């Protein structure tokens, strides 16, 4: 994910349209290999689709089994069964609270940090950016044990704000990196005008830069939200009481309790839990011109 790093908004975000097939001599061998390649592609597409198809069909099948099959008697019974306050509604709301708080916090902190990094020649700017880049690569799974022990000492285990602060901190490196590259794309002349008119750095950030890079900030926020939404390990370790657990953890408990019998309900729950992420991905990718390419920063 860190490769998204240097995508400048509006510039590198769109991939050029696919090149049309080279209009060379249409030799039969070439056409045959073209058919072969398409056939291979179709096989790969089917292989990727089949496991997911089970999820969609099983959710609609009250008598779902573990194998892919068309429902005999399709219906929404599975959704009705899991749509109770304790099973899905409260966990999904918990997820929303956790992820939204973490995203807002991340975007605010990242914007404040990115501004001086983008605008001033800081003595410690480069080392700081290198450290940030280094931190995006560290395996977060590895810090969960020491984090738990730290949280236990600070009485932060099983607190929502502790979990939010940790989620925000861990998404900050990539967020600062992204926000800085978005900010680099905002021309500095506008601020210079504001400075001439006597605005402070903070004022010009708030009333000149922030409005201009609102789309960028939203992208960073959505990105943080999606990552936090799918995170299972962090809340699994840091939160304990039933009424605070987000959907990522309760769906695991559901799997443990009913996963071996109520396949249809597990599938329905999975879809409910997946839906927000899919919607957000769709929004962002439409926004960025159809290619929310995480690899935008890579130069070939």
């Amino acid at each position, binding site marked *: *994910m*860190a*490769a998204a790093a*240097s995508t400048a908004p509006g510039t590198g975000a769109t*991939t*050029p349209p*696919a*090149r*049309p*097939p080279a209009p060379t001599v249409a030799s039969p061998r070439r056409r045959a290999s073209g058919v072969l390649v*398409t056939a291979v*592609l*179709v096989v*790969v597409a*089917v292989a990727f*689709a089949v*496991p*997911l198809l089970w*999820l969609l069909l099983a959710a609609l099948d009250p008598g779902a*089994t*573990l*194998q*892919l099959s068309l429902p005999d008697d399709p219906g929404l019974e599975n959704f009705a069964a899991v749509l109770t306050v304790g099973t899905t509604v409260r966990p999904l709301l918990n997820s929303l609270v956790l992820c939204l708080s973490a995203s807002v916090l991340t975007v605010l*902190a990242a914007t*404040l*940090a990115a501004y*001086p990094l983008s605008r001033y020649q800081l003595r410690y700017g480069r080392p700081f*950016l290198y450290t940030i880049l*280094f*931190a995006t*690569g*560290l*395996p*977060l*799974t*590895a*810090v969960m*044990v020491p984090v*738990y*022990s730290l949280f236990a000492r600070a009485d932060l285990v099983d607190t929502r704000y502790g979990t939010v602060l940790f989620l*925000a901190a*861990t998404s*900050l*490196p990539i967020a600062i990196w992204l926000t800085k590259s978005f900010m680099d794309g905002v021309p500095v002349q506008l601020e210079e005008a504001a400075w001439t008119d006597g605005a402070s750095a903070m004022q010009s950030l708030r009333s000149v830069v922030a409005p201009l890079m609102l789309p960028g900030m939203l992208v960073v926020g959505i990105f943080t939200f999606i990552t936090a939404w*799918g995170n299972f*390990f962090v809340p699994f370790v840091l939160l304990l009481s039933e009424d605070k657990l987000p959907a*990522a953890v309760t769906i695991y408990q559901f*799997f443990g309790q009913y*996963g071996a019998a109520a396949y249809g309900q597990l599938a329905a729950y*999975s879809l409910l*839990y*997946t839906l927000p*992420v899919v919607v957000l*991905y769709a929004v962002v990718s439409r926004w960025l011109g159809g*290619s929310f*390419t*995480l*690899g935008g920063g*890579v*130069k070939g």
Partner: protein
Amino acid sequence: MAPAVVLLAVFFAGPVVWSVLLSFTDASLTGSAAAQTSFVGLDNFARLLQDPAVWNAVVLTVVFVLGSAVVGQNGLGLALALMLRGRGTAVRSLVTLPVMAAYVVPEIVAAFVWYAFLNPEGTLNTALTSVGLPGQSWLFTLPVLAVVLANIWRGTAFSMLIYLAALSQVPSDVDEQAQIDGASGWKRLRFVTIPMIRRAIGTNLVLITLQTLQVFTLIFVMTAGGPGDASETLPLLMYEQAFQYAALGYGTAIALVLLAIGAVFSLGYIRAIGKEDI
């Protein structure tokens, strides 16, 4: 800048430094060591080196990273990107839609989906027996292959996107020139295209290695590291030691090994992309 620095210092750098300290102690979740943690020097690391479970986990982690990331995601991603060059929009969407969908789905849902797919009564066995091949209990007999396949499925989109972007920036005239000179398809791929996206390949390899090193949820849900310790990679061993056996100090020492491997790759990553971008 201050809020970000404070957050990072307390919740990011703090745990990393703390993990170094903790790994030199006998800290524990329960028992006498929980109340009275003492400094044990290099004991945890000495134990680490002699612990067959650690070596087993290191080997499994290497197999998992090589199989699912370096060979699987990277190879399949590159192959897909190459094959998609010059295909029509219909074929492109037909392929990218399911591949991207697998990537967008949360990790735990991906684990459920593959748990179902590889179950003895799952889709794969039904398909195999319908063509006369024997089915089996994949998660038990071939747990490593099962999690490797699931992780390839989940992560290929990332590599594919990176290579699609990289290939779109390769100028076509060099390739055409090679074609005029009579180079075959394989030769053009080997000597023209691949060298031109060398940097993208390097960056991609480092990134997916870093992501794959820390995979926990997928394996935890599918096999829980089992049967026995047959699929217990370093993150799962760390979790087991720290939270199930309550040995926080030892668990942290294992985490530190993981962190160190990650740090090495992360440095490689900075070398690969950092220089031009800062």
